[in-house]
């Protein structure tokens, strides 16, 4: 094969390529990459903690001191939730592709976008300070009165970090909402938006409304640690349950903040690699919005055994079942989107199919924990751990890697090595199930979470889980190497290597600084793939033959 020796046209990454120009850039694509660097860094810290947790739990005897183990699971939770999962897809792919998909030249507020990155890193620094100084052992849920009166360590700094982090979420989501409303290209009506854009839009609304509650929560925690007014202290008329209500009022929607973007990515991938229109576009849009709204009304299902009123528990259980309905629609539509397609099994598709399976298992076990009587048994056990890792890791992280591979040629102008990527995708699926499936069994057996040691009877499952985790660790580290390699040696990619229909594929790879010379005009909805002859029509109305 002859190498195509085209010199890359000037693009967003090469134009004025100095450190200062990157640090003060207002280009959404560069800021996306800055975020990408930050969250990758935090992902590996959180991942390191996870590795230590699984190493420690491989045997009941353990490896770490109890106090160190408790710090590890806290770091793991805080890092992964606020510093990886929540910003993962929105702040990287959302930042990069939301404007491109709607035909905009940038986000509505480029400076705010940059500020969001600085605020994010500031919060990261505060958290790192807390860790370096000795860490915290409250768990990511910071339940008082333990966190307010009993925990040693840097709870104040950690809560402050989460508080600051919230501002970054708010800024980015505000930016997305305004951009989607104001900057759509001519012809880009609401019902022509790609599902990824809908996902970004719905998640932004959730972030924008829920994050302030978290901020109040963390602020009160700081006040408690600092002067102790007794908000959550029953001996002074306060109420520890109040914290749980406020915390979950944010943190339950936060679960959907983590999964909605993943749903958006997977819809893009499945349609593109099955080479057919997504099944039930409108249903998918409505499901996204329904999830976003209902997610606000289920928070107390985290408190079924905390002594809340029986009748409110019944209501929250019912609403939790309702939120599963739109999720079920999505699973059904993704699966049926394969029907009469012309399916290509490239790495992003493997991740997407993995996502659908793991998300289905995560969602169905979600029903089990939403069932009141069963939750009484499995609440705060490894069953719950397994359930939400199926959603957060099996779901969101798989979608993140899927999206990363899919958009890699667009972002870098280079192909990733396909066989390595397929290998990594398969390994992820295998390693993931080995790690987390045993935890369902452990959970029903009754192993509570956050235990640094356990009875010998539970050893085999824990050992299996730890073995799986080592495979998973390799699967997650692999892309770092081959994607790094491809930056230098990867085959050059054209504007639309996968034959996809979104507007982001109608500009060169990598895109020029302002995405398009002329604002594109949109002629039709997304996903005009024809599996019969492989042809497809990009959203600007140009019909392309099968490649």
């Amino acid at each position, binding site marked *: 094969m002859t190498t195509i020796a085209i010199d890359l046209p000037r693009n967003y990454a090469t134009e004025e390529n100095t450190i200062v120009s990157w640090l003060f850039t207002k280009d959404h694509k560069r800021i996306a990459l800055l975020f990408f660097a930050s969250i990758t860094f935090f992902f590996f810290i959180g991942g390191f903690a996870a590795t230590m947790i699984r190493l420690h739990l491989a045997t009941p005897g353990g490896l770490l001191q*109890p*106090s160190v183990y*408790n710090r590890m699971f806290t770091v793991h939770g805080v890092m992964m939730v606020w510093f990886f999962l929540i910003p993962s897809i929105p702040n990287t792919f959302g930042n990069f592709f939301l404007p491109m998909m709607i035909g905009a030249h940038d986000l509505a507020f480029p400076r705010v976008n940059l500020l969001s990155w600085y605020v994010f890193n500031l919060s990261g620094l505060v958290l790192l300070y807390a860790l370096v100084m000795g860490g915290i052992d*409250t768990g990511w849920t910071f*339940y008082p*009165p*333990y966190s307010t009166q*009993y925990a040693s360590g840097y709870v104040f700094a950690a809560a402050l970090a989460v508080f600051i982090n919230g501002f970054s979420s708010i800024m980015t989501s505000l930016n997305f909402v305004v951009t989607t409303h104001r900057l759509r290209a001519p012809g880009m009506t609401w019902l022509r938006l790609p599902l990824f854009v809908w996902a970004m839009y719905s998640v932004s609304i959730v972030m924008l409304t829920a994050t302030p509650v978290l901020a109040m929560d963390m602020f009160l925690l700081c006040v408690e640690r600092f002067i102790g007014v007794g908000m959550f202290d*029953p001996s*002074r*008329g306060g109420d*520890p349950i109040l914290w749980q209500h406020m915390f979950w009022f944010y943190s339950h929607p936060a679960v959907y903040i983590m999964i909605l973007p993943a749903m958006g990515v997977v819809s893009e991938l499945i349609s593109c690699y099955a080479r*057919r229109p997504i*099944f*039930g576009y409108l249903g998918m849009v409505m499901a996204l919005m329904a999830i976003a709204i209902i997610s606000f009304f289920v928070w107390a299902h985290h408190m*079924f*055994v905390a*002594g809340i009123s*029986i009748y409110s*528990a*019944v209501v929250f*259980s*019912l609403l939790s079942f309702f939120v599963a309905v739109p999720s*079920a629609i999505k699973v*059904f*539509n993704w*699966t*049926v989107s*394969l029907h*009469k*397609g*012309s*399916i290509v*099994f490239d790495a992003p598709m493997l991740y997407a199919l993995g996502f*659908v*399976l793991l998300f*289905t*298992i995560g969602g*169905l076990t979600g*029903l*089990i924990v*939403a*069932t*009141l*009587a*069963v939750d*009484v*048994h499995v*609440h*705060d056990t490894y069953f719950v751990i397994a359930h939400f890792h199926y959603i957060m890791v099996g779901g969101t992280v798989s979608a993140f890697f899927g999206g990363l591979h899919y958009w890699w040629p667009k972002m870098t102008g280079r192909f990733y090595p396909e066989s390595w990527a397929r290998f990594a995708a398969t390994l992820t699926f295998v390693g993931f199930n080995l790690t987390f499936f045993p935890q369902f069994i452990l959970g029903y*057996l*009754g192993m*509570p*979470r*956050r235990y640094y*040691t*356990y*009875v010998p*009877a539970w050893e*085999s499952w824990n050992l299996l889980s730890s073995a799986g985790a080592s495979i998973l660790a390799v699967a997650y580290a692999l892309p770092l190497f081959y994607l790094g390699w491809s930056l230098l040696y990867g085959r050059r990619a054209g504007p639309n290597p996968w034959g996809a229909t979104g507007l982001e594929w109608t500009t060169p790879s990598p895109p020029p600084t302002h995405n398009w010379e002329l604002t594109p005009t949109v002629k039709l909805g997304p996903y005009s793939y024809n599996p019969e002859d492989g042809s497809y029509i990009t959203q600007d109305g140009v019909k392309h033959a099968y490649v």
Partner: protein
Amino acid sequence: MDQYHWVPFWPRTAALNAVVVNNLYIAELGLCGLIIAMVVGMMMTFCVRYRQGSTVSRADRVKKTWHWEITWTTATLVAFLVLFCWGASIYIWLFKTPPGDIEIYVVAKQWMWKFQHPGGQREIDTLHVPVDKTIRLVMASQDVIHSFFVPAFRVKRDVVSGTYETIWFKATKTGTYQIECSQFCGVQHATMKGYVVVMTPADYAAWLTSHGIRESLALQGEALFRQYGCSGCHGANSTVHAPTLVGLYGSIVHLQNGGAVRADERYIHDKILMPNEQIPAGYPSNVMPSFAGQISEDNILKLVAYIQSIGSQEFSR
């Protein structure tokens, strides 16, 4: 102790509630299995049949999608509602605590479980109970939130600082079952364990006597009632305008603010620590002092037991 011969898949089932929860759980696993099989089956079939390069026709794809979606949504909704009702009815049955045959007081603290039997017997981290009797636990925490969890009984309840939580179980098999603390409560959370020893009634009676009939909880409470000066106001010949506590337990108290509460353990507990939160109608506020920080949770439990004992006297009269 939980002994298994081989890799365990399933916890032991040793209480009334456990059987009921098992059935529901098995039904749910069945439904989940069915749905997963369906999704995987469809996915596999489509992936093989419609892989790129296969020659099957792709013409006449389903275009109208909504009736598929409606069917699927209704089907899932119905299945979900059945599960919801099933789970909720068990939960209500479980958490509407019935009066127990035996009432045991539990104090949780970092990192131990203290149990006090009505006869005054106390134990730490081990709880002896008779089989086939409804055991009601009244639980308080001395510090942070803990959670009382017996996997073999499928019962769990957070022990939240500042209030009483109650739970009941009826063990159906003799044996020794693990107690776990399932809410993170500090460094030694993982070792905050204990055992429930379920015995035959005869063994239980023997155990009670061998552990000495100490002064009963209520009697100890009566002494405290005098020691802390409660009797000065609440006693029969007191001059303070304070309600008599005889017959209080279990009755409905009408409050000054117009509401009404049942005078249960939690009410009495809160009355001792935060007397001005709920004032019974017709009595002055700010007279009864708060005893927060002065009486330990153990002693409050004894006071409650005492007030309870003079309450039931009234009822039996």
